[in-house]
């Protein structure tokens, strides 16, 4: 249903990907680690290899939590926009299907936060 406005309405998309200077927004959230109160947001080039996301971007932020250095990356369970997925580390974000404003969640079996509290 069209929006109800007096004389038509505007078509403004404030966060079009073109507005991010070659980047796209990617959100990353670590399950069972609520010390990170929310998913973290990053402006990243879509050509960035997934491996760089993990080693450069995520490590610089999620190392805030002591569990981070214990992560066994081969066991990590990934979820992209609500679906389980297997990222190809060598391929780019775009090639992995990570779109503008996509949400990547990762779960680290065996690591469940401070004293197992999921924090």
């Amino acid at each position, binding site marked *: 249903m069209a929006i109800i*406005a007096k004389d038509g*309405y505007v078509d403004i998309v404030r966060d079009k990907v073109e507005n991010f200077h070659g980047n796209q927004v990617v959100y990353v959230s670590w399950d069972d680690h609520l010390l990170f109160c929310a998913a973290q947001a990053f402006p990243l080039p879509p050509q960035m290899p997934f491996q760089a996301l993990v080693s450069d971007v995520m490590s610089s932020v999620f190392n805030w939590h002591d569990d981070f250095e214990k992560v066994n990356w081969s066991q990590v369970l990934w979820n992209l926009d609500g679906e389980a997925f297997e990222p190809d580390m060598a391929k780019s974000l775009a090639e992995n299907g990570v779109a503008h404003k996509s949400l990547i969640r990762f779960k680290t079996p065996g690591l469940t936060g401070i004293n197992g509290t999921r924090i």
Partner: protein
Amino acid sequence: MSIEISAKAITPIRLSYGNLEERFGNKRPASRYQEAVYDVQPTANFQYRPLWDKNHEIYDTGRTAIVMEDWYSFADPRQYYYGTYTIARAKQQEVAEHNYAFVDKRDLLDELPDDIKQAVRDILVPLRHVEWAANMNNCQIDCMGYGTTICSVAMFNAMDHLGMAQYISRIGLLIDGNEVTALDAAKKDWMDAPEWQGLRHAIEDMFVLEDWFELMVAQNFVLDGLIFPLLWDRFERKLSQNGGGTIAMLTEFMSEWYSETVRWTNALAKVTAQESEANQQLLSSWLDKWTNRLSEALEPVAEKAFGTEGAAELAEVKQELLARFGKQGLTV
């Protein structure tokens, strides 16, 4: 020892809010007026376009053709914020209340000569509709305008006009022993009597003006600038001279209000015209347009009020108005 430390420690870390330090320096505390009005209105990063006006932001400098580098160039010479405003009006209303009660208690209006009573019914009571319109127009200026120094003045002005519309209504009730006959007759005149139609037509045209600053000129500069001197001053004096002095007790609020209002309309005209040649020309053209339109519309009212003297009285009032705005830098 600890007392000494405390006394020393309780020096302020700053004297004013940051925006006021930027505007007025940090040497002394800002006034309550300055705190209350400067930079309060949002100016940036609006979230959503109005569903009722997709072409503008919620607050938008583009709703008038007047251009100001700083919309806070204007300051109210009365320095009204809500507190000072209501306290000032409360004092005036206390006097008014006393006068209305006095007139009511002694049935003073009953004792007026019939022709005076009729003149009040014919000329003053219909003005409640003019005041009501002034209330609407100032609300429009407030909600469409830009900058809190201007918008808050419009808000206070709107409420003043509502108050005056209510005072006039009370005169209408008092004159007929709390019966609504005078109010009903005045409404009928306002809607149908030929002498009011030019004014009503002009006011209805003001209701649909798109530029809020033009409405400011038409309503607060021109219409008030004609009506108040002509009817709340000159006509009221005429009534007094003919045995209607009691009426002056009931209209004191209006004459006091107007002499106060002139101060801020002058200041606003001056600062806006000074800003640029373009503003000066625009203001002058609006002043010209609305002075002609509204003085023409008031001709039959002036004639009804003053008889053959009407045209001359109106012409004088018009000249005073133009001279006043001429002094503020408008071309007249």
